[in-house]
């Protein structure tokens, strides 16, 4: 059980963590998601007593870390691949920890076997690959058979096989009833392992909810249709039923939505953007309904076939039609994008580049929560 309450850590004038509150419950994987520099590692280090908080509290099993009776048996952590001295063998590193914690030495053999380092246990850690060092870090974390595990970016440096292994391990540890708290900036990875998500940006809490809720709340499956006769199509669709809702692609999605259109239909975004907003190719345009170039509509509550049929019935030409699936990646970009909006020009640029990199495909899906246009104008 991990409890963080109103935690703030200040470095000089900046706040690495700013009033963060959340809990990580036993028996599930709690994903700690946020972009680089969001305060994830700092939060973990405060939890582990390595860094003192400026205010607030971070408790493990209900206690400040320093007051844990036997931290070796209660908490295991993988903070970085540098957990072991490069001049020491994996076996010596783990043996030292086992001796210090009063853990039988045969446990060292067990964890070495478990992480797949038994064959190289006497080699010096300095000669290990990044993936092997990550595995040693996992062995280190598991050595005391702890009930609470903290993994900071555990899949960094792992190959595909290693990533899958890490994923299974993480899920398995939670299934055994342990509290598993995993940080990552990789939303795709979180989607694979987490039950619950704590999303942070700039040290602040953005979301604290079950994974499914985060996806459901922030990204919705819909049909994206582009038509030069968007006005006519929209009229038709809005009469299709009470469960159907239609949004303009660029009407409320801001720069992110424009980026999505650009990614969906190469050339179109540049063309329209070039006329409307020179130098902002990613921005779509809202006024396309009245004919001319195709405008995008997001249709919620209907399938692709139905939207196609309605277009046909309305006599509206269709230049593009596809289903946009909800994904955590979308939700994440929206969530952290919001946080970045508070900040500097540099952060705005970062967001824009994220949207334009291709991962922004459909990022405007969660449009209602996204401030309009600031990402684009920051350019």
């Amino acid at each position, binding site marked *: 059980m991990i409890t963080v309450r109103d935690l703030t850590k200040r470095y000089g004038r900046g706040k690495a963590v700013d009033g963060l509150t959340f809990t990580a419950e036993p028996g599930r994987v709690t994903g700690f998601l946020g972009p680089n520099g969001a305060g994830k590692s700092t939060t973990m280090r405060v939890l582990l*007593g390595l860094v003192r908080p400026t205010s607030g509290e971070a408790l493990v*099993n209900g206690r400040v870390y320093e007051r844990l009776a036997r931290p070796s048996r209660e908490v295991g952590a993988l903070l970085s691949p540098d957990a072991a*001295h490069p001049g*020491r063998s994996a076996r010596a590193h783990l043996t030292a920890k086992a001796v*210090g914690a009063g853990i039988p030495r045969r*446990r060292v053999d067990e964890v070495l076997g478990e992480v797949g380092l038994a064959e190289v246990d006497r080699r010096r850690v300095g000669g290990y690959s990044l993936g092997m060092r990550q595995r040693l870090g996992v062995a280190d974390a*598991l050595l005391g*058979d702890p009930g609470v595990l903290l993994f900071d970016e555990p899949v960094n440096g792992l190959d595909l096989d290693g990533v899958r292994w890490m994923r299974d391990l993480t899920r398995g540890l939670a299934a055994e009833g*342990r509290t598993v708290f995993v940080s990552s900036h990789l939303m795709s990875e979180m989607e694979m392992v987490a039950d619950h998500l704590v999303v942070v940006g700039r040290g602040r809490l953005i979301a604290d909810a079950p994974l499914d809720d985060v996806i459901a709340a922030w990204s919705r499956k819909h049909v994206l249709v582009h038509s030069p006769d968007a006005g006519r199509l929209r009229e038709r669709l809005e009469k299709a039923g009470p469960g159907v809702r239609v949004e303009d692609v660029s009407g409320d999605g801001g720069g992110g939505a424009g980026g999505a259109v650009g990614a969906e239909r190469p050339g179109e975004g540049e063309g329209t953007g070039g006329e409307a907003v020179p130098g902002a190719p990613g921005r779509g345009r809202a006024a396309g309904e009245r004919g001319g170039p195709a405008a995008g509509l997001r249709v919620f509550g209907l399938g692709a076939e139905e939207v196609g049929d309605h277009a046909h019935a309305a006599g509206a030409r269709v230049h593009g039609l596809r289903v946009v699936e909800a994904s955590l990646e979308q939700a994440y970009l929206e969530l952290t994008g919001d946080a970045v909006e508070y900040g500097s020009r540099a952060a705005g640029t970062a967001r824009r580049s994220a949207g334009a990199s291709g991962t922004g495909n459909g990022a405007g899906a969660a449009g209602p929560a996204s401030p309009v246009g600031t990402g684009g104008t920051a350019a």
Partner: protein
Amino acid sequence: MRGRDGMSGTRRVGRAGRGNGAPGEETGGAVARGRGPGAGAPRSVGGEGPPRAGAELLRETGAEWVRQSSLRSTWAVVAVALAGMAVFAALMGYTELTRILENPDEADSAAFMRLTSQGHYYLVQFAVLVLAALASTGEFANHSVTSTLLWRPRRGVVLAARTLVSAVLAFAVGVLSTLVGVTVLAGFVAPYTGVDVPEAAVAALSAGLCMALFAVLFTGVGTALRSMPGTITLGFLVLLGLPMVMQLSQVQAINDAASLMPGLAGVEFYAGGDVGFYTAPYDGPVNILAVVGWAVAAQIVARTELRVRDV
């Protein structure tokens, strides 16, 4: 899609060596009750209470011994110290022999203590400095200190254990290097003067004690500075550079104060007052007390710094 079903029963964290109250079993609802304003109060989560301070230090000392002894650099420095003393003793032995051959009256058993003390002063004490610096700063340089402190949140225990192991190693280096020095010297001058065994034993133990105190001092300095170059630079200054500069001073008080620096006070102690060059106007326990003072001061700074500064 989500790979939940990818999890299989292939991995299972063992529970070796664990009795009742194992953490894996105790997590969950029980610990959640600890939340609340008074959560900071110590409470037994598992069946086992916190280890006693003595037991904790003992375990950490064991861990620290594994940490230091598993590094090749530790043994390399020990070997350099002993080899350095052997070479120094050979050089001095040859010189002494030449002197004795020129004038047999020069043969003097006090040469053993004087010459090995010079070996400690010029060579061995710097090996001890490096030994302590390696032990105290190495983990900060490569960040493995987080792994060490994670399981020992009472950081003072880590410092105490590290200091203890470094001091024991340094004591061994001091004693062994004295014995090496005496043996090599004897190889040259034994036909002309015998070794005074009790005196040699005192010399070995004195050097061992002083080297151990230097290890305490520089483990403290290294822990406070967290930097190997910084520790070694400061070590050279304190042991050799500063006292030499101070002795150049025409101000008598500064000149005299140089003898309270750890390098000079130390050699005055383990050489038994006759190292063969000018050290200090003071004789007696003041010298070893000066070294103790330096060591204690460094430890106080290190302990405070380690406890309050983030890692």
